[in-house]
């Protein structure tokens, strides 16, 4: 993985020194809150409902064990002994004190981490496929280019006061696990005639106006990539609607001007930016790429794995659910669920972080990934080690066998923490997981993605959930709208609303009725929820939710 150069280390140290002085000036009264707020946001510090919140970037979701240990130490020393992993591969601390934040940032710098540009109208943390460097279906590892973009975008002088935030995601696999079509720029690594290049999608995003990204260019060669995306951001920086923050994102710019006009403007600007890049970016890319060389995989028998798989049904269930295909023979990508039934999605205690870090160091080539689905990935594990790993995870409440199932729910912090939220998300996720665990139905139900957002900004990706739940405030009461048929993958689809929402008391029984309808109408266990929905449409689900008569009346909804 990438290791900071002297330049990087000095840059972060200087930035931390500046922020420490800014915090001091805020406390001694020489900065007003209006002056301080944009400064703290650029360094990842929010003020939420009950306390400050520090959002720390985990670039392209990659961590080593030393970094994970540091995250645990920070949670213990300056927070309440846990952290919350987010849908954009960040970790959030929910309870820091203002005076402590500079020390937290210095502690992060010790392990080459920071919170720069995790908020504010800047280019945010660059995210990537959480199976990067390990997936069997990968064209190329997306992390080197993600790191290149991080370096280019960090403190980029032209892009510190953008019309709005700007998010970039990269996938190196045709099976998009990085939700690239819901990003301001989504990059898909493709191969053409033996040459690696990038399909550039622009203008995707969820939020109050969900839009699926459009292909601006289906093949940008490596040599042109940085000047090309600089041209995209530059065009938007001038065109973007600064008069209205709800219309400022590039998805609206693209919608208002049309993709052909944007493409023309980008090409014009690219003719200029290309001249300004002298090849240093390519040399840098090669140097970065060398640091992401794959670990040396070994060939060993997997008999220990097979024995456990045959003899231990708990292990078998976990292996069937939480493992994915690795590109090296004998290896598996192992997902550690942060969705124990009834737990807060994405939360890990400091003890759990340390257990996971130690497993990564001992068995996993010292590598970890954070997924946008709020789970932790051991990307490189030899199957022979899995029985020992499973036993260790199990003794720390980390062996829940539910990856991709109904209880593996994405949920934003919602009104339990977030100042923007209009309703709670976490308790809804907890109750759904607990209920279906009681019913012992989740393996029978099979692949199903429930995604919950506590407001229209859609941090919980509800638009692309097979079942999406959006929490709103309806006349002073929490109300939950359901959408069906969303899909977060390469051929992204936005879910359709079923009709009127449900109260907090009604929403769990409503989900139960939906699942009952699915089990009734599916063509056997091999037809997952999303396929059934595509085959039969909304009608049986509406009937299950609202009754036969009301379903007809809500047709227009």
């Amino acid at each position, binding site marked *: 993985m990438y290791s900071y150069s002297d330049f990087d280390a000095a840059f972060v140290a200087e930035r931390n020194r500046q922020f420490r002085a800014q915090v001091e000036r805020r406390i001694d009264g020489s900065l007003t809150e209006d002056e301080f707020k944009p400064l703290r946001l650029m360094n990842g510090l929010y003020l939420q409902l009950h*306390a400050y919140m520090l959002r720390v970037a985990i670039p392209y979701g990659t961590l080593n064990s030393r970094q994970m240990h540091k995250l645990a130490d920070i949670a213990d020393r300056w927070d309440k002994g846990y952290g919350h992993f987010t849908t954009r591969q960040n970790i959030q601390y929910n309870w820091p*004190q203002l005076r402590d934040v500079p020390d937290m940032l210095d502690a992060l710098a010790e392990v080459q981490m920071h919170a720069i540009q995790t908020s504010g109208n800047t280019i945010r943390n660059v995210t990537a496929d959480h199976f990067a460097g390990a997936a069997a279906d990968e064209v190329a590892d997306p992390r080197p280019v993600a790191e290149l973009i991080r370096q280019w975008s960090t403190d980029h002088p032209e892009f510190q006061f953008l019309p709005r935030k700007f998010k970039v995601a990269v996938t190196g696999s045709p099976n998009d696990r990085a939700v690239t079509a819901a990003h301001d720029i989504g990059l898909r690594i493709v191969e053409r005639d033996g040459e690696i290049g990038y399909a550039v999608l622009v203008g995707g995003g969820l939020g109050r106006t969900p839009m699926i990204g459009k292909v601006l260019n289906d093949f940008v060669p490596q040599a042109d990539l940085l000047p090309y995306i600089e041209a995209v951001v530059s065009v938007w920086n001038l065109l973007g609607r600064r008069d209205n923050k709800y219309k400022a994102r590039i998805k609206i710019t693209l919608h208002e001007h049309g993709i052909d006009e944007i493409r023309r403007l980008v090409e014009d600007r690219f003719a200029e930016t290309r001249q300004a890049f002298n090849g240093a970016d390519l040399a840098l890319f090669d140097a970065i790429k060398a640091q992401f060389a794959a670990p040396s995989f070994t060939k060993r028998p997997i008999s220990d794995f097979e024995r456990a798989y045959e003899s231990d049904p708990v292990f078998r269930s976990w292996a069937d659910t939480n493992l994915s295909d690795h590109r090296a023979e004998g290896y598996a990508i192992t997902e550690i669920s942060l969705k124990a039934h009834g737990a807060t999605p994405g939360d890990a205690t400091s003890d759990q972080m340390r257990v996971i870090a130690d497993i990564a160091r001992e068995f996993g080539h010292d590598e970890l990934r954070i997924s946008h689905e709020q789970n932790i990935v051991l990307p490189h594990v030899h199957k022979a080690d899995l029985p020992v790993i499973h036993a260790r995870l199990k003794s720390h409440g980390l062996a829940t066998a539910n990856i991709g199932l109904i209880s593996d729910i994405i949920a934003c912090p919602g009104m*339990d923490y977030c100042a923007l939220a209009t309703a709670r998300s976490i308790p809804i996720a907890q109750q759904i997981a607990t209920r279906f665990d009681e019913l012992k139905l989740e393996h029978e139900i099979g692949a199903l993605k429930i995604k919950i957002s506590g407001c229209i900004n859609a941090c919980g990706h509800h638009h692309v959930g097979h079942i999406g739940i959006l929490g709103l*405030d309806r006349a*002073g009461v929490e109300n939950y709208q359901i959408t069906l048929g969303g899909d977060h993958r390469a051929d992204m689809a936005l879910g359709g609303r079923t009709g009127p929402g449900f109260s907090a008391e009604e929403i769990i029984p409503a989900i139960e009725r939906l699942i009952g309808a699915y089990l009734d109408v599916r063509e056997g266990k091999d037809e997952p929820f999303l396929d059934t929905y595509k085959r039969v449409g909304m009608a049986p689900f509406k009937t299950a939710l609202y009754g036969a008569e009301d379903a007809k009346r809500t047709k227009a909804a």
Partner: protein
Amino acid sequence: MPKPFTPKVITANALLSGEVVYLTADDRWSPHLSDADLLTDEADAQVRLLDAEKRSHEVVGVYLVDMVPGADGPEPTHFREAFRRTGPSNYAHGKQAELKRSA
């Protein structure tokens, strides 16, 4: 016709801790909603708000919010303020833990 004024308290987050605080009758910031001054006169509420907003060395994000009188001081009329008074519902963190300890 203008809407009749409904009773309100002044609330904010403490600058250093970020904790939710309420303005008391003697112009202190208290972490307890029960200590808050329930303002029933609109002109008074606006002046108190202006004065409170000047105290930016102590608090952030000062605003007036609807409350109703209760047996133990002001009570929230909206669930958001009920969460701010108590803390998150997934862990016993924030006020629900800290105020119990100090009680």
